[in-house]
């Protein structure tokens, strides 16, 4: 791996950039791997990276049906925060946030993690109660999150309207200063490059179409569009397609896949210094380093694999954006798109074993798994490497739907992710 640095960049500038090697190879699949990861999103690639880097397991393949990062990793609004309510989620997302803070250096790839602060707006007495509950819980979990008055919200995000005449006046906000954004593609490519250089095979255009099983029912390999591959251990990290992939192993899951949309405005000079979320009116907004306002909309109400949704969903969000930021009404939408998110009944992920030996799953991140990427990948790598969950993902079992031990952040606070 050629190290990235200002000096290598300078050297290449004089060399007309002729010397840069590939960031990851494009190998033919080998007949056999110790671990096969299904899904070349950031979680899958990250898992492979940590398997190689921390657990010394390098005979690993990441199988991606299209191009790496082409799933939700490449189409999310990049909001990162860890101020979750429950201990279980807080531990998971904070684990991730801590990793985010050093990820660029660790990967030698600028992930552009930008701790711009995530401000969540309260618009009702109920919101205020709920946010305080979060803030106190976060404090005791060692996670930063502070209460801002409407005036402090305005000072933090000058474009925000705090007019008391608004349809939903701002009654305050919860600010996590360490929260922010990162460049979605950089995470994918950074992990890919890191994993590849440690021996992991990243195989694109390779769709997993089935599983083969040993006599005892455990996994013995995967069938793919590029042939059969033997392995005793498979980690499925296929986000919106998890039901489809695991369906091929005969499993049915507590999952539904919905389109989730986002849009960007035309680029403008810096005007939005942070991330603002409002669950009450349903708006998520930040400004990318290229200058577009990046705006997250909601899910459509029906399951779909079509990566697109209805205009009424985006328009609902823009209503809210323009209400909160009336000066943006003359801004223009430049592009909109959709992803397919896999949603569990309690909106928390499932990370761990499946009923089939050797088959592991990491799914159900729904609308909010980008922020978890390094944490999720790390604990999943641990689970795959050791066969037992990391303490952080231990509660995120499939079995919780049987026992009723749900981790329902949304129900607890009506907080989307």
């Amino acid at each position: 791996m050629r190290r990235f640095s200002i000096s290598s960049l300078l050297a290449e500038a004089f060399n007309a950039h002729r010397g840069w090697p590939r960031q990851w190879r494009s190998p033919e699949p080998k007949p056999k791997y110790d671990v096969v990861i299904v899904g070349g999103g950031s979680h899958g690639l990250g898992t492979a990276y940590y398997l190689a880097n921390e657990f010394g397991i390098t005979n690993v393949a990441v199988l991606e049906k299209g191009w790496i990062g082409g799933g939700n990793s490449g189409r999310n609004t990049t909001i990162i925060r860890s101020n979750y309510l429950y201990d279980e989620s807080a531990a998971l997302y904070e684990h991730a946030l801590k990793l985010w803070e050093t990820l660029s250096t660790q990967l030698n790839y600028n992930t552009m993690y930008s701790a711009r602060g995530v401000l969540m707006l309260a618009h009702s007495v109920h919101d205020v109660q709920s946010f305080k509950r979060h803030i106190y819980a976060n404090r005791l979990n060692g996670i930063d999150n502070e209460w801002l008055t409407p005036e402090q919200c305005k000072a933090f995000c000058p474009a925000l309207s705090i007019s008391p005449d608004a349809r939903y006046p701002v009654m305050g906000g919860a600010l996590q200063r360490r929260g922010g954004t990162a460049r979605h593609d950089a995470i994918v490519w950074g992990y890919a490059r890191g994993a590849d250089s440690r021996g992991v095979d990243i195989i694109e255009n390779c769709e997993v179409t089935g599983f083969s099983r040993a006599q005892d029912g455990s996994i013995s390999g995967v069938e793919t569009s590029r042939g059969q591959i033997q392995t005793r251990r498979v980690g499925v990290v296929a986000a919106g397609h998890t039901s489809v992939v695991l369906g091929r192993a005969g499993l049915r899951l507590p999952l539904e896949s919905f389109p989730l949309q986002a849009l960007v405005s035309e680029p403008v000079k810096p005007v939005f210094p942070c991330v603002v979320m409002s669950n009450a009116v349903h708006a998520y907004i930040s400004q990318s380093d290229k200058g577009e306002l990046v705006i997250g909309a909601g899910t459509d109400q029906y399951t779909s694999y079509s990566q697109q949704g209805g205009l009424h969903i985006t328009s609902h969000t823009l209503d809210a954006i323009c209400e909160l930021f009336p000066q943006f009404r003359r801004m223009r939408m430049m592009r909109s798109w959709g992803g397919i998110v896999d949603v569990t009944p309690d909106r928390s992920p499932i990370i761990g074993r499946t009923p089939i030996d050797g088959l592991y799953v990491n799914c159900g991140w729904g609308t909010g798994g980008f922020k978890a990427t390094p944490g999720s990948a790390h604990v999943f790598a641990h689970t795959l490497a050791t066969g037992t969950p990391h303490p952080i993902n231990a509660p995120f079992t499939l079995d919780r739907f049987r026992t009723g031990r749900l981790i329902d952040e949304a129900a607890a606070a009506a907080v989307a992710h």
Partner: protein
Amino acid sequence: MASDLSAHSFRLANGGRIDRSRPVRFTFNGRTIDAYAGDTIASALLANGIHLVGRSFKYHRPRGILSHGSDEPNALLDIDRGAGRRDPNNRATVVEALDGLAARSQNHWPSLDFDLGAINDRLAPMFAAGFYYKTFKWPRTFWHRLYEPAIRAMAGLGVAPTESDPDRYTQRNAHCDVLVVGGGPSGLAAALAASESGARVILADEQAELGGTLLHDRISQIDGRAADTWRAETLATIAARPDVIVLPRTTVFGYYNHNHIAMVERVTDHLQAPPAGLPRERLWQVRAKKVILATGAHERPLAFADNDRPGIMLAESVRAYINRYAVAPGRQIVFAGVTGSAYQAAADAKSAGLAVTFVDVRDPTQCGEEVGELRALGVEVLTGHTIIGSVGRKRVAGLIVAPVNGPGDVGAHRTLPCDAIAMSGGWTPAVHLFSQSRGRLQYRDAIDAFVPGASAQSECSAGAANGTYDLAATLDEGWRAGAEAAGTTASRSFAVAPSTRTDSGRARSLPTDRDADRVRAFLDFQNDVTVKDIKLAVREGFQSIEHVKRYTTTGMATDQGKTSNMLALGIVAEALERPVPEVGTTTFRPPFTPVSFGAIVGQARDALFDPIRKAPLHDWAEAQGAVFEPVALWRRARYFPQAGEGMHAAVSRECRAVRSNVGIFDASTLGKIEVVGPDAAEFLNRIYTNAWLKLAPGRCRYGLMLREDGFIFDDGVVARIAEDRFHVTTTTGGAARVLVHMEDYLQTEWSDLKVYLTSTTEQWGVIAVQGPKAREVIEPLVEGIDLSPGMFPHMAVRVGRICSVPTRLFRVSFTGELGYEINVPTGHMRTVWDAIIKQGAPFGITPYGTEAMHALRAERGFIIVGQDTDGTVTPDDAGLGGMVSASKRDFVGKRSLVRPDMLLADRKQLVGLTTADPKLVLDEGAQVVADTKAPIPMKMLGHVTSSYWSDACGHSIALALVSGGRARLGETLHATTPSGFAAVKVVTPVFFDAEGKRVHGGLEHV
């Protein structure tokens, strides 16, 4: 014809579609620009000899006007229409010239002419594709403090509006049989055919005038008439037909599911003095039975070094400026390209009297008779030449060409002096909408382009959008599409002379003898992506076209690569040595061109953002100075401060009044459902946790409702009005979802039950009169109901009259006091309310708001669903285990209550908390811990759900969900405060009137 341009003006003396009788003046960077009605900003600037209009994104290179339409990547201007009507990034090629408008160039400092940012151009070797991924990582804090802000400040083109937009926007839903997108020849022919049979037709075109390419076609004859005459006549015919809507300035920007089409009509931006009442823009949402996509094609640039200088334009655009706007983009124009259409453009330029040279980069053997024809007009035509580069900086001054003698053999350079270059690298059908509709594209080798293949929805493409470039064929195809869409078979064919030159060669990166890894041949002009960036990406392993796009950002600018994508794709194919169709395109997404948020929002602003539901006595409460709080869509009176009172004092006073005398409260927002039918009781029995079969008519009962997962969903009092009729109440926020929940079970699980549900939330206004004096106050007003406790006990309901209006009178209490909830038809609410206030005056009747209501019920330990429960709370958790019928075989949610986790002893249970400091009112949401010295992360036992100052108790009270709480009664725990922790004692969640005697009234005051 000789050119008669004056020294300063590039306006041609004759021709064009501009209205020379209507001069228009606007400013560009403060300088006054003279124009005519019919000009765009771009044509007016060109007429004034201005090519330099902006600086590029990354390198701050001087940039000019590339195109004449909505595909413009370069000429982005800030447009100020005055009075807060300013927005950035407008394409100069589509903004119509208007008096008083102020246009400014963007992305430079201190000025367009002298831009310090241009230093980036010198540093360009550093700024290769994806350079930022490779550096700025160290030291870590520098990224956030230094590098990132610097990168951001450089990016972003224009400046966001700073004022709230004064303009209005509106929307319209429309339906039609045939929607024709694009009013060029194919669209016009389609609309003509479709409307002939009386079909409902909408014809939309994004331009100010319909006609498409016909607007600048001076040579074609259609059915014997000049193209423009045919255009005008056809348009008039179409527009005169009933059920036809013709919409100029209307961009179809989105093709969604099931032929749902979104378009935006620009209504007033082009008007000098728009009539009052007109919106700035209108969003149309059309549901069309059939859509005809006649969106034309976009011309491609050529990729040669420094192909981005001001003055270098697309050939067809040069033709359009000359013919349509009577503007000469230059006096001495070099055409360079591979298309027949460029020859036509060159011929038109020549006949406008301009000096013309033509460079055909094709091998002479690939060129046809157009070469000879153009030479015959006296134009020098070079074939078999490549382009080495251009000269000039803020305006192009020459094109450097060289003959190609064989593979890798580039001959001697020659600089063709010029003041404009017209390039044509081929045509790209505008398949955006087709592709959005999820149709499959197919590659047509002959035109080196993707054209529509299999359809996914009910649409069809015609004309250049379909890869058909010959005008006659375009018309025929449009006609056929229109006729078929309208269900007729009438065929027709159009005679066109002369025939269109449609041949096209294939242009990729042009041969050069310079170092190809160093020269910059631009593809995506706006995002400054060059051929070598693409090659670098491919070299670094970004080989999927989607990866190339994301690594280099090609096609990601405001034009979404309309002019550049196909060329970039060709370069990728070349670099990968793969055929173009194997490389494929990136995904086309809405919008086709950028759309203002305002149009998408439409009316939904301010008061129309979301309905504000006001309780029946809202106006009265407002007049009393009430402070309101939003609850779901409702506004509810929170408290009624008297002069000088804060919330705390007001709420205490209101509570005191209820406990000692009587209070009055507007409870109308509670949801209400009338449940009617012989099986009504059985239905409720299955919906609620508790039993209903034995409830007698005239009696009420508090009911608890679960979701199927066992968690509390809603609650409320239910009254049995008659054997087969119940009056159900729900929480304010729950009204709609409870009805849906009930209908769901009724229609899908128990459709055999004879029950009907009707929402009566707004039929009944509800006045709660609560307090020891409640009966005395209302008794004189009530007719036909005996209020004596024996006849009308607690939890009874009676139908009668109050103040002569019908009432359903409930004797219920959410305060713990003797109380009534008086349901009257909403329209009578005010009358009754006023009468009660009057009657209660001697008793000190006091209006109270939601805050006092909350405090009063908390003193009695009554829960509020959604506050003391949160979707993870079972009846037992909430201390309502007794509400769960043990004898009922089944009800919604029952099975879930015996799941393993529901039976654990450490579940959070509702308890009361009192603070060691009696004055301290805890924060709702405060967390409860056992040991404040424990390390972080600290074990939390639960949280405070409700917390108030209790006037009746003389100390603060709180409800909390605490792990194993009921076993902790008497324990001291600690709750978080803003500054630390406060000691609290766990108590039963009833703070006042533990025996619940007061609801029976007549007790001494406390």
